[in-house]
């Protein structure tokens, strides 16, 4: 079976080959990200059955275990990397026609780098290596946010840069502390002898790591950058940002808390934090006029729900969280891509101008409705299955603390239902505003319809047959939960 290292190496190679290809012919660079992501998807899907049996450990640079930089492709890692590859591929196809003006070549390079960063974060077993890939992901997304080059884009990018830099700095300090105490950088080794060290110094490093990764994972106090970044970035980029980037941050927190530190005592705090994020995200989204800002806040809300599910520390809880990551990734990518062309067609981003678009762009608005219904959690779609698993997990724990938190969370989902359905109502039943000039007549390009349609079909099929993803969730949850198996597996051979 092919080694997971290819998942990172090949796209990196292709990324740096783009400038050369760019010289050869103007039209080729647009297709390179598609090829890269296609390759990644094929590899990770083929890796999946093996990873399910046992995590694949890949050593690099030949040193003995505690000192070697190695990749651990467990079921969770491979599942997330295939999700990243899938969404990356579809957004890349969408980007072929969407990105016309501006530095197209640089866009493609950064685009591949961002996805490589995300894949790296998901697969790596070494904490410093985690930081490196994390940095790759953040820096490329800073640049892509400011891709439009207009004043709002640059300003949002700068703000994102400042907060991201601080976040990365904190992560670096955290890793430094850990390296100081344990001397090694491989997560498994740290995990093995973490209990032997005094708790306070350990806790400080954990706090730094959580806050650092939290910035990227859009947890409540730390997600100031997200609304501006997502709304001013081009739609394809904001699709990747909220579809993949913030989930990588959340994965990092989960990996740190569960595997590295095994700190189960902080979980209730994280649960409360998740619910607060959910409520804040939904409340802010309710009053929004700008569609992309609304979707950004809705992403914050869903992140809160995922964090809450992760903090349950039970197998079904984690599998629910992962399922929600998958369903939210698909749905939010779909919403951003669909709204991208709607904004392109109506010329303005506020929701009132999108009224009555159901007649002019029937397929796009139908897919938007499917995405919205899935996010709210209405049955035939994948959102329902993930929400169902999470609620089952919470009630499975049976602790009144979690059930009251769940009740508050459900109110959040009702708020989300309210504003999404108001938009859907606007599409089909509100008359189109007369004054909006017909921006660009003509059909939506084929390359935009394919990804959006495919995502909608995916949401519906996984919704009807959750078994496809269901099988992988169990082992993925165990991979995260039991540290000893992880340590024994990585250190053992």
């Amino acid at each position: 079976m092919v080694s997971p290292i290819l998942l990172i190496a090949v796209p990196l190679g292709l990324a740096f080959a783009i400038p050369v290809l760019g010289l050869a012919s103007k039209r080729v660079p647009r297709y390179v990200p598609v090829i890269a992501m296609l390759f990644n998807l094929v590899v990770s899907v083929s890796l999946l059955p093996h990873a399910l049996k046992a995590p694949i450990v890949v050593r690099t640079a030949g040193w003995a275990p505690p000192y070697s930089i190695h990749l651990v492709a467990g079921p969770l890692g491979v599942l997330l990397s295939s999700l990243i590859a899938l969404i990356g591929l579809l957004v890349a196809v969408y980007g072929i026609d969407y990105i016309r003006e501006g530095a197209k070549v640089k866009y493609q390079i950064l685009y591949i780098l961002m996805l490589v960063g995300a894949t790296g974060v998901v697969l790596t077993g070494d904490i410093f290596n985690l930081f490196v890939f994390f940095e790759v992901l953040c820096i490329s997304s800073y640049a892509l946010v400011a891709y439009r080059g207009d004043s709002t884009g640059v300003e949002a990018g700068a703000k994102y840069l400042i907060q991201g830099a601080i976040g990365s700095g904190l992560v670096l300090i955290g890793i430094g502390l850990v390296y100081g105490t344990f001397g090694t950088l491989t997560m498994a080794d740290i995990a093995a002898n973490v209990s032997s060290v005094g708790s306070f110094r350990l806790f400080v490093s954990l706090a730094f790591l959580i806050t650092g990764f939290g910035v990227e994972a859009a947890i409540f106090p730390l997600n100031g950058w997200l609304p501006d970044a997502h709304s001013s970035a081009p739609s394809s980029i904001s699709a990747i940002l909220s579809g993949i980037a913030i989930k990588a941050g959340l994965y990092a927190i989960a990996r740190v808390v569960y595997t590295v530190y095994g700190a189960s005592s902080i979980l209730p705090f994280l649960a409360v934090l998740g619910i607060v994020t959910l409520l804040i995200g939904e409340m802010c989204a309710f009053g929004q006029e700008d569609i992309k800002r609304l979707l950004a806040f809705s992403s914050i809300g869903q992140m809160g729900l995922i964090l809450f599910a992760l903090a349950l520390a039970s197998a079904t809880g984690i599998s629910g969280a992962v399922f929600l990551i998958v369903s939210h990734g698909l749905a939010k990518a779909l919403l951003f891509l669909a709204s991208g062309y709607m904004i392109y067609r109506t010329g303005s981003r506020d929701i009132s101008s999108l009224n009555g678009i159901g007649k002019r762009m029937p397929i796009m608005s139908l897919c938007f409705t499917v995405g919205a219904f899935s996010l709210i959690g209405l049955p035939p779609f994948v959102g329902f299955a993930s929400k169902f698993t999470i609620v089952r997990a919470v009630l499975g724990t049976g602790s009144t603390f979690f059930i009251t938190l769940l009740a508050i969370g459900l109110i959040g989902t009702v708020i989300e239902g309210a504003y999404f359905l108001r938009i859907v109502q606007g599409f089909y039943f509100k008359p189109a505003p007369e004054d909006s000039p017909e921006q660009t007549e003509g059909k939506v390009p084929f390359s935009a319809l394919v990804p959006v349609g495919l995502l909608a079909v995916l949401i519906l099929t996984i919704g009807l047959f959750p078994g496809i993803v269901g099988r992988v969730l169990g082992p993925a949850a165990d991979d995260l939960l039991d540290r000893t198996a992880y340590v024994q597996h990585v250190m053992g051979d």
Partner: protein
Amino acid sequence: MSPQAILITAFAGAGLVFLAGKVHSHLRDFLAVLSSLALVGLIAWSHGQYGPDNEIVYVPDFLGMELALRLNPLAWFFAIYIAIINAASVVFSLSYMKGKEKLGFYYSMMLLVNAGMLGIVLSGDFLSFYIFWEIMSWSTYLLISYRRGPALHAGMKYIIMSLVGSCAMLVGILSLYAQFGTLQIAELGEAIAGSSSGYVLFILMAMGIAFGVKFAILPLHTWMPDAHSEAVSPFSAVLSGVLVRMGMYGFLLVMYSIVGLKTILNLGAGFFNFHYILSWLGAITIVIPTFIALLQNDAKKLLAWHGIGQGGYMILGMAFGTSLGVAGGIFHTINHGSYIALLFLVVGAVEYRTGGVRDLNRLGGLIQRMPVAFFGCLVGIMGLIGMPLTNGFVSKWFIYKTLITEGHPFLAFMAFVGTWGTILSVYKLLHNMFLGQLPEKYKEVRKAPISMQIPILFFCFVIFLFGVLPGIPLRAIQGIQDTMGFAPLQLTMWGLASGAGALNMLNICFAIVIAFAVVLLLMRLGAKPRRVPQEDSYAAGSSVPAGKYHHSVEFYNPLYQMISPYLKDRVDQFYYWAADKAQGVFELTRRIYTGYAGTYVLYIISFLALLIFLQLAWEIW
């Protein structure tokens, strides 16, 4: 016919109609009617087939649970009732909706709602019950907001309340799953017997909220008047006739199939047990909405408020758990379905012919132009009041008898006052629309088209048939009660045969018919009067002023001034107040994202400081 086949035809019908809509309108209409009638036939044909061979697991593994369908008397009873009302309203909307836009969407949504309801009724476990419940909710939402304008607001109100309800139900279902490990209704029945009454109360409360919202019990009813008056008439017939009664099906399922008769009756201490509070809620639901209906001037709002009012009777019947009461409650569900759907179709026909006029103060004298619609309205209101010979009377008789023999005269009193409120308001409906002077502009109004008259006459026939021979539906209800473990009633074809408290509708029917014939003979004995136009009327010697000689504005003005201050819908006002407060809070939270990078950095640092401070101060972690 296995329930799976029924569901497949239902959902396939919805999909095919949408596609046919793209091809040709006649094909779409034909397909819609065909699939509705096919459903009626399929369900009727699968009458007797209960028992194990009808339990079908159609999805073996859905997130670790299996989804099953089953057919038992209760399910069959509600299924045939859903299918018939849906078929009638689809036939009605053939001509009513002619010329309106987006008909493909309309017909497919109608059939989707119908399929959702059939799914609910046929589902064997709570997960598929929940899935079909949600499909029904959001397809109803899309149909309510079909008519643009104020309908959008009504739709939003509906969907928010039903979302809250379904979240509560989700929590209820999954706590059942967590407790007993299975969601199959049959298995849950035995499993729940052992659990503590507190837990059963929690389950009933959680599920009760969802069913209460759909059933429009008093505190949760505010969406219903707007939704009914804004929805398209054929759909509001389905909405009020059967969709609202899914709440009733839910209550029956949870209270009697799952929790079982014994535990229900002694749930909670002495005065505050569950079914007592439920019955008081039902009684209040009868009185207040009926008197609010009295003050409405819009025909459909009036009927909507009656829909809520009549719901109270079903709750009263069902709450006491006696076999007579439950039979009365179930029978009242389908009776109410028949005459409220009939009245909505009549209002739709009048609206169709007079160009969208529903205001009761501007109609009048239509009996001369639309006799069939008048006859439908007359039979409808007789059913709604519960006059003898109509089915409404029999079910109300059952409910009253339970209330009195169970020793609850105050509840019976509130039910009776509700009946009198109904009489006043439905007579105002009939009088302002059909009687009195025919205004000038409606002189050339044509009769209701044939495709509207068929459903109207069909419902009239059903109302009278079940009124005179109540044995037919009661025998089917008897089957349901056996499955729920109630004592059988001594039923006869024309009523109840038990001793002094017997009910014999056939005798009453013969008596009335003979008396009618005798009086008609007396009438013919006297001199034959001559027919005169409406202008030749007593006006103290002067000639009748055209257009000004019709009294319908502020029909019950003296009563209006006395009771209108008390009858503002306070619950609705409270919800709007709460919504405004929530909006205020949302505005406040939006202020957190100031858009200034400095504050965001401050947030990050302070979060880190908080974490470390908490650890230093209290060593929590």
